[in-house]
Each structure stands twice: as C-alpha cells, then as structure tokens.
C-alpha cells in the first residue's frame, strides 16, 4: 500500500515539476498575500510585529487551499480518477499519495514565502528556529491531511473551489488557533516555551486523531 501511495505521490510531484503551474501559483499568491498585509498593516510600525504569527498562518492556509483543490480537480481531466479507482489499490493509498504530494508542496511554499515575509516586515527572530520549524511542520501536517480529505469530498461538487474553504476553515480552527499561539510564543516570548509546547501537543493530538479518521473514512468518500 505504501508503494502505491509513493507512486501516486511521485506522479503528482513529477507532473508538477513538468508544468510548474500549481507551485508557481501558490508561491505568487503567498507573495500577494504578504503584499496585501503590508498595505493593511504598516510594516514600519513595531506593533505590526504582533500580527506576524497570524500572517504566517493566513499565507499557509490560503495558498494551501489553492493547491489542495487542484490535487483532485486535476484528476477529473480524462477521468483519470477512474483510472486510479480501477487499479488494484486501496482508497487509503490514493489519500496517502495525494497527501504526501500536497504536504511537500506546502513545505516548499513555506520555505520560499516565509523568509520573504520576514524580509519585507523586517522581522528579527530571537532564536527558537528549531521550534518554529517544528510548529510549521506539525501544523501543516494536520492542515494538509484534513485538507486533502475534504478536497476529495469537495471534488464531487461542480463548485468545488467554493465548497472546499467552507468545509475546511471551521474544521481546522483548532490547528489555526494552536499554531498561531505557538508561533507567537516562539517568535516573541521564547521564555514561555512550556505553553508553546502545550499548544504543540494539542496540534499533534489533532493531527493524530484526524489523520486516522481520514484514513478510515476515505473509503466512503472515494466510493463510487
């Protein structure tokens, strides 16, 4: 099963490498979000630094939605989704494969856009780099796993781009709350690390619960 999942992930990522369409859109969109935020909040002002943790996660959420939607819509061309369903795989392999591809893409977007954000807002990080990476990875993991699942669900609708945000935002609110709080603590008062760890534990619990849940329920979503 892992093998099939890796094959699907590889196919998605390789296809992405060929066209560079989605990744480019996601990164440019992240850049635009940063731009809009710099109009909305004055970058020179020191109090703006307080919103940086929130901005980080807004960027991840909105670029993520773009990529997530496309991951299943692209399978509607030539009905290739049917091709995956008649192949001797479990539905969970399809979920796992798509998840791995989406997760890799969002990590790339984060890698490119966050330094850009820090640059534009002249944000100096006071240590805690490792913890920041930890929060980013765990938060993105949870967001992308439930995101991939709900993208598969929403792909059944004709207006899937509109349906996916509607489904995704309420359900991922714990991750967003936890991730923004943890990021804030790590970036600004690193002394309160224990609270940050508590938030990270909440996010990890969410990740585990929902990853398992998605794994079990994906059969019903991808059913014919």
């Amino acid at each position, binding site marked *: 099963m892992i093998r099939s999942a890796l094959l699907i992930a590889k196919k998605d990522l390789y296809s992405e490498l060929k066209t560079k369409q989605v990744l480019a859109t996601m990164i440019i969109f992240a850049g635009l979000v940063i731009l809009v935020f710099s109009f909305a909040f004055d970058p020179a002002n020191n109090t703006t630094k307080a919103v940086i943790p929130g901005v980080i996660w807004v960027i991840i959420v909105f670029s993520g939605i773009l990529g997530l939607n496309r991951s299943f819509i692209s399978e509607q061309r030539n009905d290739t989704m049917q091709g995956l369903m008649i192949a001797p795989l479990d539905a969970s392999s399809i979920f796992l494969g798509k998840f791995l591809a989406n997760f890799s893409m969002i990590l790339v977007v984060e890698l490119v856009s966050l330094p850009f954000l820090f640059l534009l807002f002249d944000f100096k990080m006071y240590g805690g780099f490792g913890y920041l990476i930890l929060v980013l990875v765990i938060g993105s993991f949870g967001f992308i796993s439930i995101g991939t699942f709900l993208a598969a669900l929403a792909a059944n609708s004709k207006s899937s781009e509109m349906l996916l945000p509607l489904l995704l935002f*309420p359900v991922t609110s714990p991750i967003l709350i*936890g991730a923004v709080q943890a990021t804030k603590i790590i970036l600004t008062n690193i002394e309160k690390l224990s609270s940050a760890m508590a938030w990270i534990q909440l996010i990890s619990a969410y990740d585990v619960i929902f990853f398992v849940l998605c794994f079990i329920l994906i059969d019903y979503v991808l059913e014919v």
Partner: protein
Amino acid sequence: MSANLEREKAALLAGQSAAEKASLVPKILFGTTVVSILASIYFIFIFSSIEKTMGVVQKIFYYHVASAWCAFLAFFVTFIFSILFLAKRKRIFDTYAYVSAEIGVVFTTIVLTTGPIWAKSSWNTWWAWEPRLTTTLILWFIYMAYIMIRQMDGVWDKKARLASVFGIIGFIDVPIVFFAIRWWQSKFHPIVFGNGPSQKGGGIEPNMLVALLVSITALTLLYSYLLQKGVTLENMRIKVTQYKEKLREDLEN
C-alpha cells in the same frame, strides 16, 4: 386509466388506518411541547428569583443555555444518524440527519443572538471570545458546511454519503475546538456549573436550577417535535419525486 384509479383508492383506504395510528405521535409531541413551553415561561418569569447583579436581563440565560443544549444535541443526532447511514444505507437515516442539522442551525442561531444580547447588557460588550460562544460560532459554520454539501447537484445517495462523512468529522471536531478555545481565552463567561480555569464559578440557586431544567426539557421537546415534522415533510417530498419519476417512466413505455 380508470383501473389504476380504483386500485389506488383501495390502497389509500388501507393506508388510512395505518396513517391514523402514526399521526398520534406528532399530536402527543405537539401537546407536550406546548405544555412544557408554557410551563417554562411560568418558571422563568414568575417562579425563579431575580439575579442580584444582572437583574431581569439574566432571564435570557434560560433559553440561551437550553438552546445551546439543543444545538449540540441536534448535531449529536446528526452524528449518530450519519454513522447509521454509512453502515446501513437506508434513506430514512440520512433524512433524520439532515433535518436534525437544519433544526440545529436554528437553535445555534438562537444561541448566537441571545448570547450578544446577554453580553451587551451584563458585560457591556457585544461579543466575547470565550470558549462556549466561540465554539457555538464554529458549530454554526460546521452546520452550514454540512448543509452546503447537501446542496450539491447529484444523486441523493452520493450527497447523503458525503454529508454523513462530514457529519462524523464535524462532530468529532467540536470537542477539540472547545478545548482549543478554552485554552486560548477564558475570561468572561461565568462558569455556571463547577469550576473552570477562570476565577470563581457563579453559583446557582435551586429555583433557578428548576427553571433551567424546565426550559431545557421544553426546548428538547420542541426539537423532537420539529424533527418529527421535518422528517415527515421530507419523506412526503421524496415520495412525490418518486411518483413523478414513475409517471415519467410509464409515459415513456
């Protein structure tokens, strides 16, 4: 054509006696709902004492809490019927889940309107980012998402299956949301029962407790009545669609 009509008349007469028995349940529900709501009004406004600090406005709390209870109950019912539908695939389960969600939206909206009214008059702020109110807000959005899935175009069993999956995911999400928000902000809402992370739990006098329980019972009965009526309506709508389809087929052949 006439042979058909006579056959249907016979079927109708046979069905009538069964229908008479079935119509007893909604009548009972309606009766008890009316009685209990009248009783709750009495209990709230006459029986229970006026709260010291907040005054008469506090009375809104009874329906506020009772609605919140019903909103969560409705979603729990949706959750249970979603699981049942995925296991047994009977349409009636999906109908119950959907109608329960619709009623849940109504109760959630009541909570979200009575909440700010109470908040404004007691703490002088329209909204407070505290656990229960915020969780209810997110619950409202989850309900909306569930209903939007049902508005998809497609065959009913696909919509029902997808909505049931979301019903399960949404329900499991709610406790997690609650805990997340609780850790995040917990300043305003007086903890009615037991202690919370905030300072002191407001106590509750016995007569207020009675009024609260009566309100909860009244609204729960109202919920059951609405659920039963809603399901009957939905079933009728399904039947009409089926008859139309059958007619269309007969015309074709």
